[in-house]
């Protein structure tokens, strides 16, 4: 009986060791797969850098006639790490101004861009905040309107709109028959000062293609393009992203 138990234990130990070696082998294979993928992205990055250079030098003819008016409202989403690089943000805005983009929304989840608002505005010549531009009619032709947004303008704005609607329409005895519609939410967002245009194109600067909580109510038909890290931002890749947007045809579900 004692010998039987010992043999059983030895067998179990052997299987355990085999399983451990097997798991180690799988882990090595996993790292190998990811190494190949990273090499692929490195090669892709080199190709994109070269293409960006050729575009910015005007050597790729098809990008030379760019109709930037097709982009009525452009949003830029960046990770908080990217948002801290104020000089890169200013460079990006200068490129967008050169391309002819008139309305830009800068978004980062934590609101770091809102905090750097003054530093950004003083470096740009023809720029007005969205709130000021919509109040006054004196928008100079060259002016670019700038909006700063963060996570509090997304889900929290919808929450505020819900509370506004509740207070206005659900507390009175006479309004038991009130039926909330999407227009009521639009009106509520306007009433609380959170109504902004839906962007046509959203550029994501960061490691992953993810909108990081950009206001959901405004993202319905927005084209979302991943641009990579902000420090690798290039004029040529901006041109390419906007050019590709101008070639998109939307059915809007029909």
């Amino acid at each position, binding site marked *: 009986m004692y010998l039987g138990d010992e043999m059983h234990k030895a067998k179990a130990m052997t299987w355990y060791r085999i399983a451990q070696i097997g*798991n180690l082998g*799988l*882990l090595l*294979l*996993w790292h190998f*797969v*990811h190494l190949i*993928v*990273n090499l692929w992205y490195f090669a892709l990055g080199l190709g994109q850098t070269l293409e960006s250079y050729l575009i910015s030098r005007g050597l790729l003819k098809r990008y030379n006639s760019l109709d930037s008016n097709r982009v009525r409202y452009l949003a830029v989403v960046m990770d908080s790490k990217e948002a801290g690089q104020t000089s890169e943000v200013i460079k990006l805005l200068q490129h967008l101004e050169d391309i002819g983009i008139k309305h830009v929304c800068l978004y980062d*989840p*934590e609101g770091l861009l809102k905090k750097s608002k003054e530093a950004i505005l003083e470096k740009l010549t023809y720029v007005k905040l969205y709130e000021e531009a919509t109040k006054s009619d004196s928008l100079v032709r060259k002016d670019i309107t700038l909006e700063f947004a963060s996570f509090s303008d*997304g*889900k*929290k704005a*919808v*929450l505020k*709109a*819900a*509370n506004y*609607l*509740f*207070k206005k*329409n*659900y*507390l009175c005895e006479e309004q038991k028959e009130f*039926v*909330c*519609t*999407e227009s009521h*939410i639009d009106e509520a967002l306007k009433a609380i000062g959170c109504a902004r245009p839906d962007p046509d194109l959203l550029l994501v600067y*960061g*490691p*992953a*293609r*993810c*909108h*990081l*909580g950009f206001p*959901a*109510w405004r*993202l*319905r*038909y*927005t*084209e*979302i*393009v*991943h641009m990579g890290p902000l420090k690798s931002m290039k004029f040529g890749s901006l041109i390419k992203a906007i050019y590709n947007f101008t070639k*998109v045809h*939307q059915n*809007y*579900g*029909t």
Partner: protein
Amino acid sequence: MERHSSCQTTFFAYFLAFLRKCIFMVLSSGPLPRHIAFIMDGNRRFCKKNNLMEGAGHRVGFSALMSMLKYCYEFRVKYVTIYAFSIDNFRRRPEEVQSVMDLMQEKIEGLTKEESIVNQYGVKVRFVGNLQMLNKPVRLAAERAMLATANNSKAVLTICVAYTSTDEILHAVRESCEEKRDELDALEATGSGPYGLLGPNNNEKEQEEQIDLREIEKHMYVTPDSDIIVRTSGETRLSNFLLWQSSVSLLYSPLVLWPEIQFWHLVWAVIEFQRNYLYLKGKVKQ
């Protein structure tokens, strides 16, 4: 001859299943997504590209869906959500809408059969959206399928029909407001008054925020938040799908048309997810 060919096909199918299992074992050394959502774009383009009859693209698309579901469940993805029919799609030609509705009804009824993939993998099926917009036969078929699979618990398949994200948010806001109103009415009925137990000296700020974010999210059709949203045909927009739930979702847009999607596309999506996992997990915590 036919038997030989059939044996070869079966052997090939088993070999592919074994290969997929090996790939799964390698990839499961890293984190795996819990919730994958699909925007099944490209059925009509596939139809045009292959000169098929109208509606045939959607049928081939359904087969692609069944294969993709099988691969997801082999990867132990617990939640799969698909964008089957948008509220905007009702604006298509009536014949096209009717053809899609007929196909949906036929395939929904097939889901509840014993040998179907949902019973094979223990999948609970949920139909979400503004279901009142569907015609009665489709709505009843959906209700029967939900009832038949209610006790399945290994995975959840959420099928969005007559759905848009803005309609979902509207529904959540409406339900939250109505629930809060009923709560206050009940308090008033017990004599606590419209200000609840805090009494009439409850301050302005607390009155303004009767509803909180948890109450709104409780009424969303689709939970939990998605890890990956796959939209085929290379289109880069979400078209009013899971806008609320995609704050930290990886968006993946392969160029392939939906009826042509393969196992490799899912593998690539999972590899992308693993590459960005730590970054996206950090965003969830924030």
